[in-house]
């Protein structure tokens, strides 16, 4: 046993693996605990050796970028160790994601809640962009929610660093509903503004409580976007007709003001949303500019993360947690749990068991993506 293996064994002892919670193409996820503190963690066991191309690209990307990124609003990679033939990533355990919260019909979102989630999303994204990393798969179910209410960007399987100017990148990224028009038109040169479009879609989805631009195929997606935001003109988006996949659409949709759909939104809200959903990628707002947008400084101020709505499953899993062993809460911030209690009463408890499995399984369940984009 050489020094490396000894060290590895020591590290392995720090984490206890519990039940399996999900499985994906390149990994199996287990729930676990840090032995010393009892803190809950997730262990992602990467399958090795069954692939003809060696280790999966997304596994490599995910680890590469998570090793570099440490931020309050980005999921934290706590440790990496290997057992006999597997690699294990130890990640923070997060009970739920934004999609579950959006879908939970019993929850009411205040404008301040939406502002808070948006602020956390932009903060995490700004950090990634500042470190020259594109996320390339932002969508509500990749925005995980921690037990203290903090939102964290997760799933860096499609992330990459900015390419050199003039270097082609793949346009087959980002889940369709959140994919910006330039990628739908097969642009191979793009930058951090692709992520901003996705955030814009998420922003709209938070207000509408249903996906904003839900196309049912790649071609239909573009049509959906144009119908919602108007067909772009040459002034609005110079050069878009020269992109590889451009076909002159048969119908030209007029521009409808965002106000028509988002009737209850404030002027600031619509201004920021509009700036995220600009056709011309270079004119789209950057994450840093977005954080300085008046929207975030206007009343109502963002809700404190601990007071944000949470979904039933999350609370149920926490309740189960407390029942089985009381000492975990020393890690989490106390007020978070207390503040959530009033919410708990309002909510119909849907079968928590089903949700609990989904909470992490969803993130890795690629079979699902085949049906819904």
């Amino acid at each position: 046993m050489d020094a490396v293996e000894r060290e590895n064994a020591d590290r392995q002892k720090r984490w206890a693996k519990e039940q399996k919670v999900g499985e994906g193409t390149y990994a199996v996820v287990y729930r676990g605990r840090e032995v010393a503190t009892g803190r809950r963690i997730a262990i992602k066991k990467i399958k090795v050796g069954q692939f003809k191309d060696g280790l999966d690209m997304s596994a490599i990307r995910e680890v590469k970028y998570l090793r570099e990124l440490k931020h309050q609003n980005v999921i934290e990679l706590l440790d990496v160790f290997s057992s006999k033939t597997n690699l294990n990533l130890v990640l923070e355990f997060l009970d739920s994601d934004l999609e579950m919260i959006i879908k939970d019909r019993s929850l009411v979102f205040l404008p301040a809640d939406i502002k808070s989630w948006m602020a956390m999303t932009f903060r995490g994204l700004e950090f990634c962009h500042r470190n020259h990393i594109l996320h390339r798969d932002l969508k509500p179910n990749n925005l995980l929610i921690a037990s203290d209410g903090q939102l964290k960007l997760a799933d860096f399987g499609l992330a990459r660093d900015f390419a050199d100017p003039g270097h082609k990148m793949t346009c087959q990224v980002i889940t369709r509903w959140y994919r910006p028009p330039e990628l739908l038109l097969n642009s191979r040169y793009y930058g951090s503004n692709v992520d901003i479009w996705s955030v814009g879609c998420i922003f709209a989805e938070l207000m509408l409580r249903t996906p904003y631009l839900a196309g049912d195929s790649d071609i239909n997606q573009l049509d959906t976007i144009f119908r919602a935001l108007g067909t772009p003109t040459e002034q609005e988006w110079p050069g878009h007709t020269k992109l590889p996949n451009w076909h002159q659409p048969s119908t030209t949709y007029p521009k409808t003001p965002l106000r028509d759909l988002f009737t209850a939104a404030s002027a600031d809200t619509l201004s920021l949303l509009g700036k995220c959903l600009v056709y011309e990628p270079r004119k789209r707002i950057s994450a840093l500019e977005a954080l300085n947008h008046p929207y975030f400084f206007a009343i109502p101020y963002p809700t404190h993360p601990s007071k944000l709505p949470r979904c039933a499953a999350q609370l149920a899993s926490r309740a189960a947690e407390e029942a089985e062993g009381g000492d975990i809460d020393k890690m989490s911030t106390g007020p978070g749990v207390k503040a959530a209690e009033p919410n708990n009463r309002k909510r119909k408890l849907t079968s928590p068991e089903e949700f609990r499995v989904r909470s992490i399984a969803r993130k890795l369940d690629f079979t699902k993506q085949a049906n819904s984009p």
Partner: protein
Amino acid sequence: MSTTFYPLASLSQITKTPSREDGIPLELEEDLRAYGCKLIHEAGILLKQYTFLLFQNRKQVAVATAQILFQRFWYVTSMKQFGIGDIGMGALFLASKLEECPLRMRDLINVYDLLLQHSSHTLDLSPKPDSEFKYAPMSYFGSTFYDLKDALVVAEMQILKRLGFNVQVVLPYGSLINYLRVLGLTNREDVLARAWGYLNDALQTPVYALYQTPTIVCASIYLTTRHLRLSLPSKAPYCWWDLFDAEWEDLWSVCGYIMRLYRERTEEERVRVKRMVNKKEVRKWLEENVDSDANAKQDIAREKDSGSS
């Protein structure tokens, strides 16, 4: 300018590398490291010819990254355990994924097979030096491909595992341009070319696993200015390398590593290195050259060690 840092080997790893612990002498280890890096480089050049044009500039980055990962690897693993050929191949494969220009396994394996054949050819031919090298492609039904493929997958895994997934690499070229600009040396093309060359050659030495890029870049500029007889303020308290946070002792040590690369090797040394591309030969060499008694003792000690833990 990039301010990211990357992990370095620890002092104990440097003073006693795993290979030295197994009885491989310092010079031999350095030569084997350099040869492994050279193979990576050659493979990179050959691969560039049959991949698409658009990946060209990216591929160079992958080669440099692979060489750095390769150097790091030998601070956690002994050459008795893994061969430099296999690990070099694995490093290049992994680096191609890290730098977003994934290679096809078959291409990489073909190229390595050719390189290894070529190197064993040059060994055989010492008596009759003018016989021409002819590459014999792998047989279609033979096991060579599958053996190499297995070795490749294992190597990739082992690199990731043993480096604890610390695969961030910072390349020095951007800093070089900036530093030369600060020093007002950009109008001299020979300065840039030479310093750039030193940085490339340094990829064959362990320095990228030992020092951060500013130190290495300063060393390359220092060697260049010495060679071209350019004078820069170098007397305390005004030393130009202070501008870039490099320490004199570190800088001097990097220069030493680079210059040792140019040492004239004897024919015997050259042949010895080429022969030891895989671990079998390394083990054989150790058996022949290192006191077998001491070896046995070491093995016993190790068994005890693993038994107790």
